[in-house]
């Protein structure tokens, strides 16, 4: 079973992990208890390449308190090449270069104990 803690521990080392249903082959990220396609509970962790393209993006200019010093910053929904999508912060790509379809690659964003999902240049 892939818990959130396991997922982020692997993500911190640079490895994105999904789960694949042993019954029907459905791929999911993040992990869910039951397979949304067949309802079974037979997940196995699978490594993901971390490569994808931007499906949509925005530049956040009015930020919550904790992030105000970092604004403006970009977040994007990224469609991974395995077919699942994930929201992440976009880093090291100039804001004016952002576009739907732009290839990006996963990278962990590490801040003290916290790991979150980031995407940088492919």
């Amino acid at each position, binding site marked *: 079973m892939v818990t959130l803690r396991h997922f982020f521990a692997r993500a911190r080392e640079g490895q994105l992990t999904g789960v694949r249903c042993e019954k029907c082959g459905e791929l999911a990220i993040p992990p869910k208890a039951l397979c949304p396609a067949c309802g079974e509970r037979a997940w196995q962790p699978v490594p993901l390449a971390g490569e994808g393209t931007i499906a949509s993006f925005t530049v956040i200019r*009015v930020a919550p*308190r904790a*992030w105000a010093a970092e604004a403006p910053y970009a977040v994007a929904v990224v469609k991974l090449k395995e077919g699942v999508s994930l929201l992440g912060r976009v880093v090291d790509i100039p804001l004016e270069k952002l576009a739907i379809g732009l290839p990006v690659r996963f990278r962990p964003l590490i801040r003290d104990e916290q790991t979150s*999902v980031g995407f940088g240049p492919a």
Partner: protein
Amino acid sequence: MRRVAVIGVGVTKFGKHDRTSSELFAEAAADALADAGLPASAVQALYYGNVVGGETEHQLHTGPQAASILGIPGIPTTRFETACASSHAAFRHAVMEIAAGVSDVVLAGGAERVLNVPTAESTEYFAYASDAVWEQTLGLTFPGVFALIARAHMDKYGTTEEQMAAVAVKNHKHGTKNPKAQFQKEITVEQVLKSAYVADPLKLYDCCPFTDGGAAVVLASEEVARKHRKPVWVLASAAASDWMLMGDKRDLSRVPATERAAAAAYRQAGLSPQDVDVVELHDCFTIAEIIATEGLGLFEPGAGGLAAAKGWTSLGGKIPVNPSGGLKAKGHPIGATGAAQVAEIVTQLRGEAGPRQVEGARTGLAHTLGGNTATVLVSLFGRG
């Protein structure tokens, strides 16, 4: 199942208040009971929407808190929290309770107070309605959620920033006809387009404001409602949800929960979108109105932007949307919004909406969306 009617409505002025949310609710609820012509002792249950009371007012347990401040302790009461759709969820619960024969008179409503804290703080609290582990840690905001949706809609259908601006202009114009609205001044497309970006492509004037306010409605069984001067019948009340995470949503240009809830509501009522005369829908952002008009079946997918720009959704247009001014101009006290939308539809179907009256309206629809599009409620109403 028994028929259910709305027989009383009450809404506070929307804007900035120096009263607690429970005080705002109590004002609206007392007005709703007076409108219904019922004594407080007739109320058998209270279902209440409040979202960020724990954060902005350090107040949980807001169901009995609201009942106490209103002065009707002792009845069953529960707080509903489905982000911005909370009081519509409370309303649906009241409908089901009366339909099931459990109660004859139920009060539903909600209230919110957020203008007592700075914008950066309320922006953070509203973001609590997105996923704490996967999304809040990225600094995602609610304008950010709808900006992702807007960009996908623009990419798929060619929707423009000018079309989104037309929604804001229209709702501000409607708001000038509503004395309870937070904003009662017209704006122009140029003003919207020149306003500062909040989350590209959404600008300040694409966004509804932060608002304090309360709203309440009195629901009754047919037997009680028959004694009322102008009962408005609840023809349907439906709810649906969707994946919580933005990454799990299959098509960002659509809101499946709206489509599911609308289909269920039309089926319950035996109606189709063409039967609806007036709509109050959840325009937390201009793009949200465009996509809602598509999801409710008023226009084809992708045609919502054009419909707004052509004036089809204006008062006097094909299908007037948000005659109250909507969340954009009337304001959006998130815990109160669903009940306030129901109150507007009831007022319209009674023919009592004054300068913003949709002439001859017989069937109305209220649509409320929660947070990141993961909750939607749709209710349909008809006059006696």
